[in-house]
């Protein structure tokens, strides 16, 4: 009983990592794990967002609840969120939700005094906690950029004023989307594409081109390849022409018969050597494939079923994670794993349930035995 384990050891490869973006491969696990990760990143990793707004003065064109809603949607830096308390189970303020353990206070006071429209933005929010502030999307390498003015909340004209107090709290996306740290989280099955070379060679260049173009995304490409070929196979007297690598332009004197046949294999003889130009269909970007089946349908329509085989690997996933800026993308993934672990821990059977069943089991055995 002890020692037996059916646990897997998944592998991770990070392809790209930026503050608000991550792309990584997840291997040796199954879709349930990948999907659980995705779901948790979107709906259960906590962040901090404005949850309560007390408006003192609002003479702007937007009504109070409209502004409160907009304030709620502003992403706030939430590195603290994992260690913070939810207001509902904070005992320091008896569910009041206004103490330092479970909330952050913000103030905003803006009045337009000129004839020019005044933009009230997230930059005008003053936080009581320097670690919880509206996210800054400005480019850190560009110091003197004046085009960064934060997220606009409302615009004021002369005489209009906005004055309020806001309380930000910890929450999760399941409660309200404003607490979701994820802009997008997606995963795809890694495609494995096998071209049937023999069948492909039965296609003319025109047919190959048509087939390659049938894919809505650029998955395949035709590549002209020149290679020296054996005189035994191609030792017949074909016409001369020059072949250019990298482009399928064949621009010298060539056999018009060959061209009209649109053969993908053309032979030239230069310096008494035999060369053949082959137009090979290659997979240039397997991940660009969207599982749309278009190339499969096309192959079928051309009377060449089995021209290509596309398999979705059931144990390999490619994740794309985009964060709102509330937490770093890498932290989002790590927090999601942590949350999943906590959730699993919460669904463990309690001692008393196990004990109750042990007694029941003995009783049951008695009854069955007797």
């Amino acid at each position, binding site marked *: 009983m002890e020692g037996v384990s059916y646990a897997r050891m998944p592998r*991770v490869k990070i392809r790209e990592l930026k503050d608000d973006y991550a792309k990584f491969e997840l291997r040796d*696990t*199954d879709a349930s794990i990948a999907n659980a990760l995705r779901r948790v990143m979107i709906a259960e990793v906590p962040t901090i967002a404005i949850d309560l707004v007390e408006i003192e003065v609002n003479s702007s064109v937007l009504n109070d609840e409209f502004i409160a809603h907009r304030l709620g949607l502003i992403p706030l830096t939430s590195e603290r969120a994992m260690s913070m308390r939810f207001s509902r189970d904070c005992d320091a303020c008896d569910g009041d939700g206004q103490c330092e353990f479970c909330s952050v206070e913000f103030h905003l006071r803006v009045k337009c005094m000129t004839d020019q429209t005044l933009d009230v933005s997230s930059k005008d929010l003053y936080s009581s906690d320097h670690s919880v502030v509206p996210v800054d999307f400005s480019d850190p390498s560009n110091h003197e950029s004046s085009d960064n003015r934060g997220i606009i909340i409302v615009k004021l004209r002369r005489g209009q004023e906005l004055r309020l107090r806001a309380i930000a709290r910890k929450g999760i996306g399941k409660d309200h989307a404003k607490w979701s740290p994820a802009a997008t989280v997606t995963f795809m099955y890694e495609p494995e594409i096998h071209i049937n070379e023999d069948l492909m060679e039965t296609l003319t260049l025109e047919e190959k081109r048509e087939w390659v173009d049938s894919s809505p995304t650029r998955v395949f490409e035709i590549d002209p390849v020149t290679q020296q070929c054996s005189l035994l196979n191609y030792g017949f007297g074909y016409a001369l022409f020059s072949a250019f690598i990298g482009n399928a332009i064949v621009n010298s004197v060539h056999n018009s018969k060959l061209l009209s046949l649109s053969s993908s294999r053309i032979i030239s003889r230069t310096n008494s050597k035999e060369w053949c130009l082959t137009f090979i269909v290659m997979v240039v970007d397997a991940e660009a494939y969207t599982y749309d089946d278009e190339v499969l349908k096309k192959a079928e329509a051309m009377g060449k079923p089995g021209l290509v085989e596309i398999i979705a690997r059931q144990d390999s996933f490619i994740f794309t994670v985009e964060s709102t800026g509330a937490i770093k993308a890498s932290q989002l993934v*790590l927090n999601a794993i942590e949350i999943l672990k906590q959730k*699993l821990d919460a669904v*463990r*059977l*309690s001692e008393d349930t196990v004990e109750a*069943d042990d007694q029941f089991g003995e009783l049951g055995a008695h009854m069955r035995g007797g």
Partner: protein
Amino acid sequence: MNAPDRYERFVVPEGTKKVSYERDTKIINAASFTIEREEHTIGNILRMQLHRDPNVLFAGYKLPHPLQYKIIVRIHTTSQSSPMQAYNQSINDLDREFDHLKNAFEVKCVFLLFFEQYICKFYDIIITGLLVYLGILLNIE
């Protein structure tokens, strides 16, 4: 107006058990686990992990109703095991998998960050060196 509070979906009400266990009355080694305030995230990973256990004959979960915030996991095992044993084992195995995953991801992150910083510093040194060299060249002339 009479809509349930949003937190009802994920906060276990006081006096309610998170997990309750019920043996099947007709089949031995079959049982249902009712998990309060959980849904597909937990239900599906548990189910798939249970399928990896050769002693599990059946494992499935259902979300009975979108407004009943609970899932029911049903397990049927061979006589070599028991639903409770299989259930506990699956949680332990998943926990280990996530532990491993967390480590793997952290290591790769740190490695990537270190590499990036190293390259950046190196880049700075090259640029500074080049500027100094250029300055010397100009001065000489």
